[in-house]
């Protein structure tokens, strides 16, 4: 009783933390609540469902399955079927026999990780600033971070063309100094980083706010330097959140089409990334080749999905722990 009173009297960490954690788990909670509904309806509610006419039950279930099959399962399976339809040898040849396709795969494996690393560094620094400090312009910064989500990718690409193109502001200077950005790998990395910028930051801000600054301050008061504090205390607390952001960021970076299309100049064997290559092969009536590359992208997407749900399960467990933690604090 008394501890409840003090918790009310001092409007400090535990209740606020609980609120943050709840906020953070919103995304994770959705499947949880739906699970709970199913379980909860085991009693009276599902008893009522059992008495629904079988026609209604079956037709609704079949309709749902049909939609799922037509919209998701068939297209995804078809990608692999089309790609592998003529045997593994042909598939292999389609992927690695063509010099330009080979280069496209390599280019995507360069551009996406570079953009992800740039966003990782920026994301951690930016989330730190926003979650830990109150400064003028903080609200503006928060809005700016979301800008790449609302700007259409094609427009994003055009913005960079207008900046770095020969008619752009930096174009002539860059040409004079022999630096190529547009129609080259740096341009691809720049636009990809721009388009995927919000993922890591957006994921980290709520995580860092939920954790709060106290552990960091404790580390400093115990004599840790800035780097010691970051690597020994901050990083272990945020690493799963960072990984989550990185996975989403990477998936988007590899699949990006619009912005990359504009700045790449579409030069086969030089600036074609995998999505661009898929489109080009398809336009050239090379359907098996196009599906082969598409199957690699689809496979990467499935891996991303698996990693993502694994991380979410892990995160949910940690949130549950953190919540019991908070409760234990309030009622020791």
């Amino acid at each position, binding site marked *: 009783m008394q*501890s409840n009173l003090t918790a009310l009297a001092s409007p400090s960490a535990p209740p606020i933390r609980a609120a943050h954690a709840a906020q953070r788990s919103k995304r994770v909670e959705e499947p949880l609540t739906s699970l709970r509904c199913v379980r909860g309806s085991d009693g009276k509610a599902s008893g009522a469902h059992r008495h629904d006419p079988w026609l209604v039950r079956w037709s609704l279930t079949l309709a749902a399955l049909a939609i799922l099959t037509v919209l998701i399962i068939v297209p995804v399976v078809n990608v692999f079927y089309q790609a592998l339809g003529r045997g593994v040898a042909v598939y292999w040849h389609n992927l690695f026999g063509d010099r330009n396709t080979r280069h496209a795969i390599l280019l995507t494996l360069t551009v996406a990780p570079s953009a992800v690393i740039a966003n990782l560094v920026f994301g951690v620094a930016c989330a730190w600033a926003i979650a830990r400090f109150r400064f003028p312009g903080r609200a503006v910064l928060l809005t700016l971070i979301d800008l790449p989500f609302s700007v259409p990718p094609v427009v994003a690409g055009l913005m960079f063309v207008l900046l770095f193109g020969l008619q752009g502001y930096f174009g002539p200077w860059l040409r004079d100094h022999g630096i190529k950005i547009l129609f080259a790998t740096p341009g691809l990395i720049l636009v990809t980083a721009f388009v995927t910028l919000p993922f890591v930051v957006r994921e980290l801000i709520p995580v860092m706010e939920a954790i709060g600054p106290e552990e960091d301050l*404790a580390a*400093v008061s*115990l004599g840790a330097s800035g780097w010691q504090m970051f690597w020994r205390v901050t990083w272990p607390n945020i690493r799963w959140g960072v990984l989550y952001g990185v996975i989403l960021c990477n998936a988007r970076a590899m699949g990006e089409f619009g912005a990359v299309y504009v700045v790449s100049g579409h030069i086969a064997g030089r600036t074609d990334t995998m999505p661009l290559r898929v489109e080009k092969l398809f336009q050239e009536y090379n359907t098996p080749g196009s599906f082969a590359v598409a199957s690699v992208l689809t496979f990467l997407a499935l891996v991303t999905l698996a990693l993502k749900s694994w991380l979410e399960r892990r995160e949910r467990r940690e949130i549950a722990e953190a919540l019991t933690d908070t409760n234990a604090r309030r009622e020791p």
Partner: protein
Amino acid sequence: MSITVKNISKRYGAFTALDGVSLDVRGGGLLALLGPSGSGKTTLLRVIAGLESADEGVVLYEDEEVTHRSARERNVGFVFQHYALFRHMSVFENVAFALRVRGWKQAKVRERVGELLKLVRLEGYEKRRPSQLSGGQRQRVALARALAAQPRVLLLDEPFGALDAKVRQELRQWLRLLHREIHCTTVLVTHDQEEAFEVADRVVVMSRGRIEQVGSPREVFEQPATAFVMDFLGHVNVFQGRVRNNRAFLGEAVVPCPDYPHDEERLADVYVRPHELDIDHRAESPASLAATVLHVHPLGAVVRVQLQAQAGDHSLNVELSPERCMDLDLKSGDRVYVAPRRARVFVPDYSI
């Protein structure tokens, strides 16, 4: 090691958290900063620790100025209100943290951490995570962690605030014993008067970013310097009256007031603690006030009597011993006289 704070001010936008605070903490002492929330006590503690920088003023450790040193360089042990234990580390690693960042050898770390866990009576808990400990145990880990690198001062922010009454009681006594053992200058922040009085040998009462009074628990309680201190520390009855020539007048009652020798009559507040009022069936002194008994609440060691004063419709609380209450045989509705054995008169400033 003594701490000196001179003229510290700190503002957050329009809010003044500290307003020219000066304070001396004796070396080896245990001092409590006591005040309501928003009084600036935690800010002062953080300024002493170097976790917050003051807008004005200086902080000295002994004779060394540390105002512009970071918390890292000051070598303080700070215990946070909610412990702030490193959640991903074991108890052992939590306590070892300060030693690891100082580059201690593993064998020495193990020895020192063992020593500290023994001191806080948590041997055998080395491998546990903070989430597997009770509130009281976490608090002790936080203390051991803060003490690991032999800090020059130990600073505790509401250390027992999040614990339940019984654990709090035990930890207070334990902290006293611990302090006697390690003799480290300690500053403790609390909003709980009982806690401050029980643990500390000196108490600083703060209000709205200023220090109201500094003294031993007894001094602060017995001779409150201001009306705020009187009001904040325990229950009190407040009477509005007038003062003139060393006397205060409350209706027909007269109370001595040696602090006001002037001819000019002024309004004043008279403060009397419930246990310093006596009840009688007759008016025994010129200070007696006629009153009617409303309720009698037996509370164990004392009996609290609620009364209504006849002059000014004033409600009064009186605490009597159960024996005295039995002698008087009080019932609701009885008409009695209440006389203060002791009263404190606070005359508002002349400048107002």
